[in-house]
């Protein structure tokens, strides 16, 4: 008699995901082609995307402001290994972008750039979806592309690595 060594049990659960108030405001801004951040009243730093709270000071962040869609790549890696759920085709450059006006980088990808040219300090600009396709989702920013500005000085972003 053959022993049953394993069984496959499919599991499927549906969740209604609630973004929360701060992220909701951020996403509505994105739908209008704007990148919004929030400033912490205690440490004065600007968080992008807005999260409703400053983790450093543990206080709600309320002051809202718009930041530039241009910024600096603080660090990066080139992803070559497949994984489920990834949004982009391999290989791609996953970058941390510190937008001008923000005090914390966030993650996205760089395209229109040879992988070997991706570097720390590179200046980049967001490439948005066409106006009629803008939606309250990070996919409204298709990717970041390099722009013709001199690389940022290491000192200007080393705090954020």
């Amino acid at each position: 008699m053959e022993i049953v060594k394993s069984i496959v049990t499919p599991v499927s659960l549906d969740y209604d995901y609630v973004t929360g108030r701060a992220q909701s405001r951020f996403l509505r801004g994105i739908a209008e082609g704007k990148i919004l951040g929030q400033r912490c009243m205690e440490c004065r730093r600007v968080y992008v995307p807005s999260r409703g709270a400053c983790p450093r000071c543990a206080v709600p962040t309320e002051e809202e402001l718009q930041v530039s869609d241009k910024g600096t790549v603080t660090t990066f890696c080139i992803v070559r290994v497949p994984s489920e759920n990834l949004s982009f085709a391999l290989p791609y450059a996953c970058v941390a972008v510190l937008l001008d006006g923000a005090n914390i980088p966030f993650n996205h990808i760089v395209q229109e750039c040879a992988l070997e040219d991706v570097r720390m300090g590179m200046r980049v600009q967001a490439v948005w979806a066409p106006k009629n396709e803008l939606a309250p989702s990070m996919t409204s920013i298709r990717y970041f592309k390099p722009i013709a500005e001199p690389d940022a000085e290491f000192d200007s972003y080393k705090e954020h690595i």
Partner: protein
Amino acid sequence: MRDVAIVSFAQSAKAREQRNEIEILMPVVREAVKASGLPRTEIDFTCSGSSDYLQGQSFAFVGALDAVGAWPPIKESHVEMDGAWALYEAWIKIQTGDVDSALVYSFGKSSPGDIAEVLALQLDPYTMTPLWPDAHSLAALQARAFLEATGKSERELAAVAARSRRSAIGNPHAVVSGEFEVEKLLAEPYVVSPLRAHDLPPVTDGASALVMVAGDRARTLCKRPVWIRGIDHRIEPQSLGARELVRSASTEIAGAKAGVHKGKIDLAELHAPYSHQELILRAALGLGESVKVNPSGGALASHPLMAAGLVRIGEAAQRLMNREGDRAVAHATQGPCLQQNLVCVLEGD
């Protein structure tokens, strides 16, 4: 053993929150810390309870650190359990002498998923989960066994529900409250027999937090600190066929170890998400008719899963702080059909 007292408690609960977990938790933690009288940086240890599966994301609890002030870095731990067990870990840490105070918190949103279905994943994955027995159905099995073994009736279950909803009037954290006639409740259809809607826990999103302090310092912070005189918890085998469903053996052991009967009990907050379970727990703890059970309305009025057990402890403590009694029992449970139980004996200063 060091004497440890609860000096503050805060909670939040709603049927369906538009805020995310961090937005819900932050004001609750701030309120508990403020009420404790201690600056955040002087609370030595932080311990929390929550479940990734409620949020449908791995490491879901990590984001909660944003809400609780973890900078500069803190001594902190987390259990994938109801907050009542986070309180236990913190109590143990204080007993070791490594810390003298602790912030305990827990949170959970049940509304995003179908919670009874999500809990089917909390079972033996090889033999039980593939059948997808939801939590309400398992509880109904236990309720049926209980009614037949004890000769009690669905009317008595409805009476528990009616009393709970009445007690919950005036509780701002209750999701269900009001005056309900037992006859009218019994006229409602079964959800899964013998249980009706009023016998089931309401879907609730919420959070709770409290602060504990060791020794005499508690008296300088709180007018009437509430001492933890005994605390114990036990688990039973999960399989429904491997234990007696109609009594809660683990609650009996935990209650004895916690010293429930070393004095008169004025009130009890029992974590009974299903009406029949309150009757099982009362018997397990030997609570007589004179004990006021679930003055808050209990889990039938508000059930923020993963936080509800900590809420029982906090509610009991709060009432003792308000001099509604001198000695109380608080109980927390998790797992299907009262599989794991924690009992805590509290005494006002």
